[in-house]
């Protein structure tokens, strides 16, 4: 119980600091935040409306009153968020919540497929290169994964675009969002290349991670016993060894999931998938204050949620942790 409380406390602390700093940042160098929020060159009625809707977005004057002013603004923003009002983007004429609803799924699916692709590649490669350690196959795979993980996402995207998208008519240059359940083929068409861009890099990192852990596990005593029992190598690898080696992998997958919004931006922009990351870029250009704050909040929250999920997953995978937690 105490453990949970400290975690929550830490989360709250980090959340507050990060979102507060972001709010401060949006005010830097901004002559008139309200005008910024309203979308720049607009008439006075619009300004008035914006002020009425979001009274806490205004420039704080004075050196002494600056800090308390900002803090109170922050507090009111937080209050708004908790009551469901995440803000409004006047520049794009869309409420933030709607923005999430519209763009969220794209980012989500991009991330999910990227992770799937990464795992599909990483797990067999990691397991077999650990098993056939130092064999020619292992060396080649090792080199390959190193080269791939050194390749910037941008470069992978360029090559995929050039080699595939432009040659194969199947993949559109400008994708649309299509839900997977409504039209799987279309969905695949639109998401495959960007997901592949992201997933290749992930796969390379993860295969190395898994290989390292598997090598350690394969040296354990209980693997020896399994062999001495006459268990087939496949079973030893996939049933006995893998289970003990996945902890680092799980942590990394979770990290990736939580950093999805930021991690996918380049792929999103390159293939013009309409995701949240792309929206962030636009928002910063226009100093669309509330959008920026909302997206930041979402990212920090995502990190926490995923971390909690990982902790729970640890307990599921390893019964010793389950017991230690129950007793703690």
């Amino acid at each position, binding site marked *: 119980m105490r453990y949970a409380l400290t975690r929550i406390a830490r989360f709250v602390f980090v959340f507050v600091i990060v979102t507060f700093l972001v709010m401060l940042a949006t005010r830097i160098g901004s002559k008139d935040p309200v005008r910024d929020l309203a979308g720049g060159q607009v008439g006075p009625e619009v300004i008035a409306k914006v002020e009425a809707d979001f009274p806490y977005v205004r420039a704080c004057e004075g050196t002494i009153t600056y800090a308390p002013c900002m803090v109170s603004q922050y507090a009111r923003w937080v209050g708004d968020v908790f009551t469901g009002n995440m803000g409004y983007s006047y520049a794009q004429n869309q409420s933030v919540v709607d923005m999430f609803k519209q763009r969220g799924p794209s980012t989500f699916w991009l991330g999910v497929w990227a992770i799937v692709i990464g795992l599909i590649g990483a797990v067999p490669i990691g397991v077999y290169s650990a098993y056939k350690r130092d064999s020619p196959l292992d060396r080649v795979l090792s080199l390959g994964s190193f080269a791939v993980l050194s390749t910037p996402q941008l470069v992978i995207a360029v090559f995929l675009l050039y080699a595939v998208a432009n040659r194969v008519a199947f993949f559109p240059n400008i994708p649309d969002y299509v839900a997977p359940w409504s039209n799987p083929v279309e969905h695949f068409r639109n998401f495959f290349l960007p997901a592949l861009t992201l997933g290749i890099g992930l796969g390379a990192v993860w295969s190395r991670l898994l290989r390292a852990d598997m090598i350690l596990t394969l040296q354990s*005593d209980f693997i020896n*016993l*399994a*062999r*001495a*029992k*006459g268990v*087939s190598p496949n079973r030893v690898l996939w049933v006995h060894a893998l289970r*003990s080696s996945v902890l680092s992998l799980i942590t990394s997958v979770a990290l990736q999931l939580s950093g999805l919004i930021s991690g996918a931006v380049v792929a999103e922009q390159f293939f013009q998938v309409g995701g949240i990351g792309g929206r962030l870029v636009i928002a910063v250009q226009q100093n669309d204050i509330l959008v920026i704050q909302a997206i930041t909040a979402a990212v920090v929250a995502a990190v926490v949620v995923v971390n909690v999920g990982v902790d729970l997953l640890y307990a599921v995978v*390893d019964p010793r942790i389950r017991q230690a937690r129950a007793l703690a």
Partner: protein
Amino acid sequence: MTAHLQTEGRVAAGTLLEVSDLRTHFSTPRGVVRAVDGVSFTLERGKALGIVGESGCGKTVLSRTIMGLQPRRGTHLTGSVRFEGKEILGLPPQQMRGVWGREMAMIFQDPMTSLNPLMRIGRQIEEPLRNHLDMPRGEASATAARLLRDVKIPEAERRLRQYPHELSGGMRQRVMIAIAMACGPTLLFADEPTTALDVTVQAQILELIGEQRRDRNMSLILVTHDLGVVAGHTDEIAVMYGGKLVEKAPTRRLFASMRMPYTEALLRSIPKLEDASHTRLAMIPGRPPDLVNPPQGCRFAPRCPYAQDRCREEEPPLVATPDDPSHSYACWYPVGSPEYRAARERIDAEKGRAA
């Protein structure tokens, strides 16, 4: 009788295992490590052989080599190992897999690390049953429970669903024994089975192993550094040093009339209950030989209190005692020979002077 015996094509009595001039050499950057350097013995069905020696003498490598578990990379094997009349040395794992767990089994030193921490006990016991004997799930489960009862674990059904970390060290070792016994092997290797356990539990485990052996007419190779462990639980003892067998005899005879000074030193180093408190523990001075460049001549010579020049130059062969062919030793001046007695007097005199 609770044993699960299999008798097709099996040797029911007589020679089960024949090891001839077995050598296991490893290629390392430093040179060739001669971990096992010419070991020979035979083992009858139903008998127990103890292999005793310090750490690093090659006893674990020996047992793993015989069973075929030794990893093959950089390993050079010579000699012969015949199990039930068939040569098994050097056979690839694919062929040995049918033997492992089914006809030969091994229990390891540390039960905590040897059991899969993420797998329930029941499943770990059922695994060889389902793998080798193709038992359906229900039957395997029932057999597993019965095996746990055989090894005296109370509440067997409940234990099946538990994980290794929920059991005590002694219980975990019993589980290992149960796993080993699952398919009714004819040969059991026990590699330091009691070293990781409390003293009080050690005796129970050894008793259990002995009982299983008798019930199943199973042969046992008990590898340990502890002479006390082999004393009551083996028919024959082989003493290893520097990768070689230096003495081999039926248990009683070894303790009563050992020949090799190393054996004598081992015996002396066992602290006895009758000794007065503060009695100095008798150590064997020096360190085990370098297996890459073993000393010329007798390998124990550098540490032997009775060593003569000949010992350092020529390696003594393993010869049988004149009165008992089952007792062999490798020493130029064994315990009881005139040279030994002279050396002994000298040493005692020095001790007397120094005391």
